């Protein structure tokens, strides 16, 4: 089976990076070449998303690209296996959108341009690979492949003086998490003799795993928890975000964090439903801690990017809270909460991506991220201000924006299960409204700052990615089914296996 779509979408950016390294000369050519690649990637991701067949009776895994004898050695049976299901199709779309946005957001980068776009494109390949791999080993390869581009993007093009420290912190945290995951993957392989992620859930449910399932679960879960990040493993995130260049922040917030959430759904919940249901209380608790802790820290941030970074921690808490619905109520597991978690991955990707993009644009113009030094920018940059207001409103969950859709799903799904915790967590929405509106007010409105007299509004080139993101936010906000229905087809099988596990545990 080889449809070729996913192979193309995964390796196109990588091929582009190699071509840039070898053939493309001149900054302008490099920029346009990268732009064209990323646009092609966006078109491909829309095409892949549109091709996903929602119909009843459709295969769960579609657009399969499979080479079974890549490394057919005994004790190392690795296949090349790409496919999408309802869970990964929207993530492919999200990566396509943010990949394009991050390339166009880098139009004004001047230093070491060919290298810069190379790393950015390789990063996109790696993330695409994570979301489409259905072989656990291949998944891990892409998971690790993303480290080096991000390390370089932060440490070379980040903001001084802490960029090297932040890049190394990011790398060590993530690498340490994945170190444990690898051992977990190997235990699964030697228990069941396969790396195939479509076969492993069944195999695990039949038993015969070499180590206790909860231990293997923990080893794998740590990697996702660091990536998401779950409190108290979050401390790399504010540093990395603050010092990363705009495009890297967009990718980091938009898709890299989602790799953690995606892993929890694709691997933790699908392969270990019993353990996942068993720790649902823990998920709910840390989810709420994430929401409130992130929001509380945001309140005292004066650095624009650091503020958005901590708000990411808060918002990713909703994903964890949504996942805690896995245990169900009265033995009935519903799809609502988990769909909410999945939706939150997508919507947070677009909303926070847009926020980082706008923060980057503002920083380029004013050369400061310190909010008290901004102020009164609305009259000088009306378009950017409009976009920031919209992104902020989406971030605090205003109805008709995508942020509302995902948060309401999470609350509806989790409230019946963990009523008190959800009620406490809902307080985070209030805090969010507080800090977002306060941030916009201080940064964009209020008295004009004299030294910011000659800042200009966004150029047409810069409005392209902004417009794409705004469109993504509004479309999902007004017609959520376009994404939610796809997610539901991917989540239904997970919920089915959770249901079996929960029913079994009640008996």
């Amino acid at each position: 089976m080889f449809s070729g779509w996913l192979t193309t979408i995964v390796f196109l950016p990588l091929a582009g990076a190699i071509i840039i390294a070898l053939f493309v000369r001149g900054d302008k050519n490099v920029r346009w070449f990268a732009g064209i690649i990323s646009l092609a990637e966006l078109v491909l991701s829309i095409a892949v998303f549109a091709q996903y067949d929602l119909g009843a009776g459709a295969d769960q895994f579609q657009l399969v690209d499979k080479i079974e004898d890549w490394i057919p050695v005994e004790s190392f049976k690795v296949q090349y296996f790409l496919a999408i299901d309802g869970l990964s199709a929207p993530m492919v779309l999200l990566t396509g959108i943010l990949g394009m946005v991050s390339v166009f957001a880098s139009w004004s980068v001047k230093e070491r341009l060919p290298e810069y776009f190379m790393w950015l494109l390789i990063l996109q390949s790696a993330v695409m690979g994570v979301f489409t791999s259905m072989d656990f080993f291949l998944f891990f390869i892409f998971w690790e492949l993303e480290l080096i581009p991000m390390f370089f993007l932060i440490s070379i093009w980040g903001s001084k003086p802490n960029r090297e420290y932040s890049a190394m912190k990011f790398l060590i945290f993530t690498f340490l998490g994945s170190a444990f995951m690898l051992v977990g993957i190997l235990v699964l392989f030697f228990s069941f003799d396969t790396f195939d992620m479509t076969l492993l859930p069944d195999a695990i449910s039949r038993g015969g795993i070499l180590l206790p399932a909860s231990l293997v679960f923990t080893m794998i879960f740590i990697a996702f928890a660091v990536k998401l990040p779950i409190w108290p493993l979050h401390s790399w995130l504010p540093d990395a975000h603050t010092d990363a260049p705009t495009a890297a922040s967009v990718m980091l917030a938009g898709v890299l964090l989602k790799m953690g959430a995606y892993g929890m759904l694709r691997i933790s919940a699908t392969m270990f439903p019993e353990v996942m249901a068993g720790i649902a209380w823990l998920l709910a608790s840390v989810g709420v801690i994430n929401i409130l802790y992130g929001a509380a820290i945001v309140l005292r941030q004066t650095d624009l990017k650091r503020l958005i970074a901590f708000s990411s921690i808060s918002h990713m808490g909703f994903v964890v809270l949504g996942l805690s619905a896995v245990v169900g109520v009265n033995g009935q597991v519903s799809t609502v909460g988990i769909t909410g978690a999945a939706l939150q991955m997508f919507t947070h990707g677009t909303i926070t991506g847009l926020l980082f993009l706008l923060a980057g644009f503002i920083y380029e113009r004013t050369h400061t991220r310190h909010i008290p030094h901004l102020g009164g920018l609305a009259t000088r940059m009306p378009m950017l201000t409009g976009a920031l207001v919209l992104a902020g409103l989406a971030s605090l969950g205003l109805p008709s924006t995508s942020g509302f859709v995902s948060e309401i799903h999470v609350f509806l799904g989790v409230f019946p299960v963990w009523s008190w915790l959800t009620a406490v967590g809902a307080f985070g929405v209030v805090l969010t409204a507080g800090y977002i509106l306060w941030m916009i007010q201080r940064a964009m409105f209020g008295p004009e700052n004299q030294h910011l007299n000659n800042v200009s509004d966004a150029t047409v080139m810069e409005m392209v990615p902004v417009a794409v993101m705004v469109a993504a936010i509004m479309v999902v906000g007004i017609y959520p089914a376009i994404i939610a229905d796809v997610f539901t087809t991917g989540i239904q099988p997970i919920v089915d296996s959770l249901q079996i596990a929960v029913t079994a545990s009640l008996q």
Partner: protein
Amino acid sequence: MTTHDIYLLSPEISMAGLAILLILVDLVVSRKSILTIVAVLGLAVPLALSIVLWFDLTDQAATQMKADFGTEIVTFVVDKFSLFFKFLLVGATALVILASSEYVSKFKNFHGEFFALILFATSGMMLLASTVELITIYVSLELTALPIAALAAFMRDSRSSEAGLKFLILSAISSAVLLYGMVIIYGFTGTTVLADIATQLGGLLDGESAFGGNALLFGVILVIAGFGFKISSVPFQMWAPDVYEGSPTPVTAFLSVASKAAGFAVILRVFYIAFSAEILSVDWSAVFAVLAAVSMTFGNLVAIRQNNIKRMLGYSTIAHAGYLMVGLAAVASRTPDADAIIGPSGVLFYLSGYAITNLAAFSAVIAISNRINSDLIDSFAGMARRAPFLAGVLGFSMISLIGVPPTVGFMSKIYIFGAAVDTNLEWLAVTGMVNSVISAYYYLRVVKVMYLREPIDDAPVGSALPMKLAVMVTMAGTAFFGIYPTPLINLARSAVDVLVS
């Protein structure tokens, strides 16, 4: 000694012959670059003979061809295991010679002798891969160690002399320890032939023996200590950093790759053939597991603080000895349904991956430090601009040494940790992976210095053609086997069949 014996020994004989030829050629030619060409082309002979032997083995469908030398005991065999190491050793030697072509111009004379000593050491290592008898092992080890001691002292400045002397003395001590261990084992079993030791041990461990088998285990531990020196495992590692720093850089590369490969060849042979008894193998597996964990942790932690790149790579090689010993600890008899050859084949795969990667790293280091006359990591600042290609290769090989895809370092690391998981040593796999994270810190420091710092000097750093060739071959190998390791793994697996059958 029959012609058949000579045929079986022909790779080693041609290797030693090439060494003598080089000394003679050195006397008559005035352009010393001819020596490099002669040496590299000459290496095609032992390689070709090894390939012939490989196909001969396959044709006969035999696992081994034994040389008898007119004596009653078998001391030398040719099998796929030994041939795998001969390929690896000849390849590594060729790359070391290519990489040293420019470096030798630092010496006033003795160019031919420099290459000849490398080749003599290689012939000793090739013998080592083929021997199946304790005395022959000892003699081959000495044949390996003495030329290396001379090579380490080749620069004749104080550091290099110190390196040579240190290697010589510590190597002598370790040989003594090894001999003592061998004597104990001989005392219990009455034989020096590995296969016979195994049969004798079977009876000994079942029945009564002096000191209840503990004395025997003591002998085994002394053997481990002796070999531990050769592969620079903790706690026998103290020579490595000083010798690595003081020796001429190509010799350092040779030590870290070829010497280590030969050491692991003989360890695998001794422990899988002679001490394969089930009870004993679980015992030595435990010893290797602990040594592995300690080696990698010590090597990585100390490497963090190094400022000299050769010394840093010296400590990193201790860490890699630790990763390799994971494969030794992964003995299949620990668990009932484990893959019988996963441990030893992991060692072979990792060794070849490490050889390719480390030679890439050393070639790039030799090329750069030769032109800037410094081994300090800080002096590599801004090398990405001064020598983009070399810096790229060095960076890529650092990534491979960490074990990040798409490199052979990643594939081999996962394979060998897989062996640990398969044999119920999950804790060792976890230790290994955590160590990879620690190692990322100092390997990436080199990358950071090259790509992030401003260059001290703007002059571009070039390299000669043989150097470029060595760098390109190793770089291509690192990338190719990182994406498609199947042929290398299959080769390693077919090579170790003879150990467990």
